[in-house]
């Protein structure tokens, strides 16, 4: 009964995922250390970490699923619910605050019709805040997927988003 409630999907790791996780384990004295990387491996192919992944990863690493879940919910780059095809991370640290990031965020919210932490209805973008991106001489800064951008003005938001279909 409990199992049925918790496991909302029939999760099976792919062979590629399994071997990538097993490869990572050997970089550390204790397999547990690969738990964050294992979550990233799962997320890389699926976009997010489905519920059953904690059991599957825990089984490989020899740690309880609850520990994997504890890690998954602690770190901001691990998504425990489906996200958009592209992740927008807007730096909200003080330097970008002074640089006018709030105007950039509201422009994005208006164009995408979503708030921070939400995904656009077409499944294209998820909008998230992020700690200082280390691009402070070019504030305000943001990332879309793996690309970092600086000196963002609200007027430039539309063309920036266009590059990510």
């Amino acid at each position, binding site marked *: 009964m409990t199992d049925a409630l918790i496991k909302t999907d029939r999760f099976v790791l792919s062979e590629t995922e399994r071997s990538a996780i097993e490869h990572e384990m050997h970089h550390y004295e204790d397999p547990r250390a690969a738990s964050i990387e294992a979550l990233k491996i799962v997320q890389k192919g699926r976009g997010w970490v489905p519920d059953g992944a904690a059991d599957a990863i825990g089984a490989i*690493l020899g740690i309880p699923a609850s520990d994997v879940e504890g*890690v998954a919910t*602690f770190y901001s780059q691990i998504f425990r619910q489906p996200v958009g095809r592209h992740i927008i991370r807007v730096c909200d*640290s*003080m330097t970008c605050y002074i640089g006018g990031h709030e105007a950039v965020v509201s422009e994005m919210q208006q164009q995408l019709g979503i708030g921070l932490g939400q995904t656009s209805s077409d499944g294209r973008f998820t909008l998230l805040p992020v*700690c*200082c991106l280390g691009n402070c001489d*070019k504030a305000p800064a943001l990332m879309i997927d*793996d690309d970092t951008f*600086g000196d963002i003005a609200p007027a430039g938001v539309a063309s920036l988003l266009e590059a990510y279909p």
Partner: protein
Amino acid sequence: MSALNKPLASVGPANRVTRTEETHPLTWRLRDDGQPVWLEEYQRKNGYAAARKALTDMAQADIVQTVKDAGLKGRGGAGFPTGVKWGLMPTDESMNIRYLLCNADEMEPNTWKDRLLMEQLPHLLIEGMLISARALKAYRGYIFLRGEYVDAARHLNRAVAEAKAAGLLGTNILGSGFDFELFVHTGAGRYICGEETALINSLEGRRANPRAKPPFPAVVGVWGKPTCVNNVETLCNVPAIVGQGVDWYKSLARPGSEDHGTKLMGFSGKVKNPGLWELPFGVSARELFEDCAGGMRDGYTLKCWQPGGAGTGFLLPEHLDAQMYAGGIAKVGTRMGTGLALAIDDSVSMVSLLRNMEEFFARESCGWCTPCRDGLPWSVKILRALERGQGSREDIKTLLGLVNHLGPGKTFCAHAPGAVEPLGSAIKYFRSEFEAGVADPSQAATTGQFVPA
């Protein structure tokens, strides 16, 4: 829109100023075009010469002593003497599994210095770690890199592979009999991972709550083994110290500075030329602000500034004559932190700025200890009320109470003390702005809309 077509985020003034090996030990190898310096070019520019000297000509204790004598201090913000930290590692041969961790979890607001070193000079960090590992007898090292630094991760991984192929990492390095392997470990995003014991927990695959100290990592670190955690910029200082010697290193700083060597310093905010420069310790903040950053942009006036990150206090324009070194900034009442300063201009409301800062600190609290977990959101609630002009008379007293109760020694780690340092100084210098957020009680009484925060 591939990242490959775009210049690296770290390209800036540090690439453009005139640099020499004698005066800019950290940045002289940077390329004018901002491309990374790979192994062949790094070696052509004297790279790994210091590692060769350390591994083949120096006893391990001599390396530690050299770094101690050079007076190298941690560049991550706390400024603890590196040689002393190294000296805490056990010398007992039976404890021969030791780790060297590089803290590359650069997330302090307004800090973008380690990014420059890792994106453009990955081999400098690897050489620094190799020499340091030799000094500490560490057999394995990890670079704990924040997940968002994707270019740095790519460059470090390529550089590690180059070094391995060239026999600069692996077994019997440079024929010295010393073995050292190095891994790049990318994090998954939480500011608290920069706290060294939280970093250790995170590396072990746990939630990044800080650990109690003692025992210190040098005694019980990652997987219970002796561990040394040093910042990227700190480790990048080691090759020059070993290669060019203590006397040269101690001649770098300006007269009056008690700290030695150079520091990546920056200025951002509404200045004319925001950026990062390698400067000798002891330059005045005014030099950094006016000569390097060009002063304020037209139409803006400097209201106050922060010397080095969110966890440092605010200073006034008159404090710009302070020398940039730990003691110089301490004289005017706060810490130098990371040395990357932020200009706050006259268009910025201090209440709103502090609201933004405390929202960050509250979000990034790991939640482990009560004062931090509950105190920081409380400060946010009050600051939001003051920002809306709906504060109560008690609010400023409550904020000052939080500054006191979340101060050094009262919480599990340094997160909350760092959060309240700017709050305390903002109220000290700009109290009237906070008082202006208190709702007018006479109006509240008549309209009945006054709701205490």
